[in-house]
């Protein structure tokens, strides 16, 4: 939109004219952007981290909108497959099916040669600590902390104070939190599942998690940013997991 606002465009009735004149006079009394604020914005921008892959993923691909826990799941799957393959390789080494064969080691066609070739293929397909950069990459990301701060303020939120969850808390009341929150506190799989359930209901990305209570009930608070800069704070109970959100309350900011 390239409109250059210069004059109010509304065709106001006469009765409104004085009010509009007053508003325009008020508007003219406000200062322009101070250089100190402009400098501060420049400094802040310079200090912002580079956009990550998660930041640059368009929303049309929801599979990567909740990237890190899914990557962790993928990592676990890949590692399981690698372990199974290695175990198979160990068995093959210990009890080689070609042990009694007189077939030459290479260069000849035949069943045994095919078996050897197949084993080589298996070896090539195994993830190696050196050459499987994809797995390594997944490993690094899988070990990464979630892309949002997790705090343990212990605050007892109410419908009026839910917005405060958007402010980072420096308090650490982790040890005094209700024990029913332990699965969400300590079991990252349950917490990841809970976060995914929340994100299925509230489109956006989680920017912060806080633990405390809501109206006295043990609760986890998730702050979600949407693409338009809006926020919503969602309070969920201790039973939140990959299947149930157990929402206690929410507030759009």
């Amino acid at each position, binding site marked *: 939109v390239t409109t250059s*606002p210069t004059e109010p465009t*509304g065709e106001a009735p006469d009765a409104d004219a004085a009010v509009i004149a007053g*508003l325009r*006079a*008020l508007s003219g009394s406000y200062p322009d952007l101070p250089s100190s604020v402009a400098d501060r914005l420049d400094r802040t*921008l*310079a200090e912002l981290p580079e956009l990550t892959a998660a*930041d640059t993923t368009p929303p049309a691909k929801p599979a990567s909108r909740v990237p890190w826990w899914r990557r962790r799941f993928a990592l676990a799957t890949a590692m399981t497959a690698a372990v199974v393959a290695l175990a198979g390789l160990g068995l093959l080494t210990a009890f080689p099916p070609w042990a009694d064969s007189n077939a030459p080691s290479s260069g000849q066609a035949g069943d045994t040669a095919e078996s050897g070739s197949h084993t080589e293929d298996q070896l090539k397909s195994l993830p190696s600590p050196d050459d499987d950069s994809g797995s390594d990459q997944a490993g690094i990301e899988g070990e990464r902390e979630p892309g949002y701060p997790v705090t343990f303020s212990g605050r007892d939120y109410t419908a009026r104070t839910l917005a405060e969850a958007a402010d980072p808390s420096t308090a650490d009341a982790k040890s005094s939190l209700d024990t029913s929150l332990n699965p969400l506190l300590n079991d990252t799989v349950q917490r990841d599942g809970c976060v995914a359930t929340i994100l299925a209901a509230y489109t956006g990305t989680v920017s912060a998690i806080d633990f405390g209570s809501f109206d006295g009930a043990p609760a986890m608070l998730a702050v979600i940013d949407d693409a338009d800069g809006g*926020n919503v704070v969602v309070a969920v109970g201790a039973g939140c997991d990959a299947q149930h959100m157990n929402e206690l309350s929410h507030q759009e*900011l």
Partner: protein
Amino acid sequence: MSEPTEPVEPTDAQLLRRHATGGDRDAFGELFRRHRDRMWAVALRTLSDPEEAADALQDAMIKAYRAAARFRGDSAVTTWLHRIVVNACLDRVRRRQARPAIPMSDQLPEPAAPGADPADRATVLAVRDALHRLSFDQRAVVVYVDMLGYPVAEVAEILEIPAGTVKSRASRARTQLAALLTDTGNQSGRPAVAPMSEPTAATGKEETQ
């Protein structure tokens, strides 16, 4: 000899795309600089507090920076940026309401243009007070339409409401402002809204590009 061609400035969308797809921070910086004066004008008039306005503008910048890749192109980049600023302002208002113990700072300078009539100054102050007794929704509409002169259709896009709603909110807000100013005038013995001398550059100063 051919005339030297002037370099073509990249569009807002191009700058945003460079940032979103190539991590070009400078492109985002240029984009934000293009519009930050107007966005500051909105934030300051909506919040009436320079510190809060600066914080809101910074919040908006960070959110836009992070959400660049999620810009769907359904609206103009400026509309999207303004929407983020309005949301950031609303966020500030709600946080302030959640902490009633924290008073709104009143650091705006006295609205005194050189040579301004003291009566005008008093009226401007009265309008400022009345404006901030409106709901945020009404205030945002009044700021855009009446103070900054944005077309109704554009405000409707920014606020994601129908144009008719913009008009009705503006109308209700003006009626309410008139009533508030009448009350103020009755209490002080001054006219509610005194005839104003024409403001200087009431809106044109927000022009950046």
